[in-house]
């Protein structure tokens, strides 16, 4: 078994063999996956040729989650959030989801505080990246690694 194959794919294969039912999973479909290069490209589309420096942004993810369907994610940027100095946008990207983009939050001086939270889907254990654009046009980033496990006794073979 390919060491890099996700647990979900392992269970799909195991389930397909053990199910032994007539219909089961007729088509063994490999889940779609982006690559680190695709994530870089998605970031380039947003950032252009500007440099992205680590810092100012804090991306909070649990180090381990029992299910990749609803992972709590918080992004906090140290910023006075004044008219002259504030966060314009916060973008989140993933490395191994089928698509690299996750969400873009548009803030501004009315926000008061550059802190947003949501729940995201993560297809596998991977690195997640948050990038913020400040009012002076500069870009800052943070990344976090997460391990995604999976429960036993799921609804179907997937």
């Amino acid at each position, binding site marked *: 078994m390919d060491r890099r194959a996700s*647990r979900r794919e392992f*269970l799909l294969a195991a389930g397909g063999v*053990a*199910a*032994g039912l007539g219909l089961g999973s007729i088509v063994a479909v490999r889940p779609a996956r982006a690559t680190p290069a695709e994530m870089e490209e998605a970031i380039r589309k947003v950032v252009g040729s500007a440099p992205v420096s680590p810092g100012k942004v804090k991306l909070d993810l*649990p180090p*381990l*989650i*029992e*299910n990749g*369907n*609803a*992972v*709590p994610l918080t992004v906090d940027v140290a910023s006075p959030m004044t008219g002259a100095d504030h966060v314009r946008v916060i973008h989140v990207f993933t490395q191994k989801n089928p698509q690299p983009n996750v969400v873009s939050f548009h803030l501004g001086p009315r926000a008061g505080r550059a802190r947003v939270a949501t*729940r995201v889907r993560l297809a596998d254990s991977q690195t997640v990246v948050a990038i913020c654009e400040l009012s002076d046009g500069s870009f800052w980033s943070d990344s976090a690694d997460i391990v995604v*496990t*999976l*429960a*036993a*006794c*799921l*609804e*179907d073979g997937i």
Partner: protein
Amino acid sequence: MLAFAASAFADEIPRADRRSGSDFMSRETRAMQDDDTANPGMLWVLEGGALWTRKTGAAGRACADCHGDARATMKGVAARHPSFDAARGRLVSLEQRISFCRTDRQGAPPLAYESRELLALAAYVARQSRGLPIEIAIDQRTQPFLDAGRTTYHRRQGQLNLACSQCHDANWGRQLAGNVIPQAHPTGYPLYRLEWQGLGSLQRRLRNCLVGIRAEPYEYGAPELVQLELYLMWRARGMLFEAPAVRP
């Protein structure tokens, strides 16, 4: 009561060691459950509250017309189900009782198992038992159902030839496929399962378990499932109800 309920199965978890599934979850998933503004199950509770006051059926009645304010009248109800329906002479789950009210009292068509409406009403009713201890009354009417449920729980089934007790009584706390095996106390149903990305009933979860051991899952509403529900709720008696819970 004690004589009726005495157990001959040495495997059962001692009362002092009983822990809810929420104790086995990560801090983040527990936080999702504990915050009503973040718990996705509350969306179903919200809808259930709206359905509670909506007139429906040939009788043109709303739940509220007979039952008034659910916060008072439904307190403890979910924590006492499944229960014996004297008129029907059988054991019924909470979802079944709600659906029977629809047909018998409202003159409306029955609600399908796992339908959005039935789950919303069940979630709304179950929410009213949150924080209360599970209380299952066993007497000579319900004893046979408890025994049948207990037998199912201890019977090896499926291609993997596993009994519920082997994971949930004998190996709780250990890892299986990356997650910790809980004790299988239905303290929070209906609940939002992250795997389902939606709210579902205890019977849906039990069917998942049966698929997990590669056994043929019983149909929704099957007596085997209701009896198993009864046994599991009885096994969890005294534990606090948490509905609508969140589970991986």
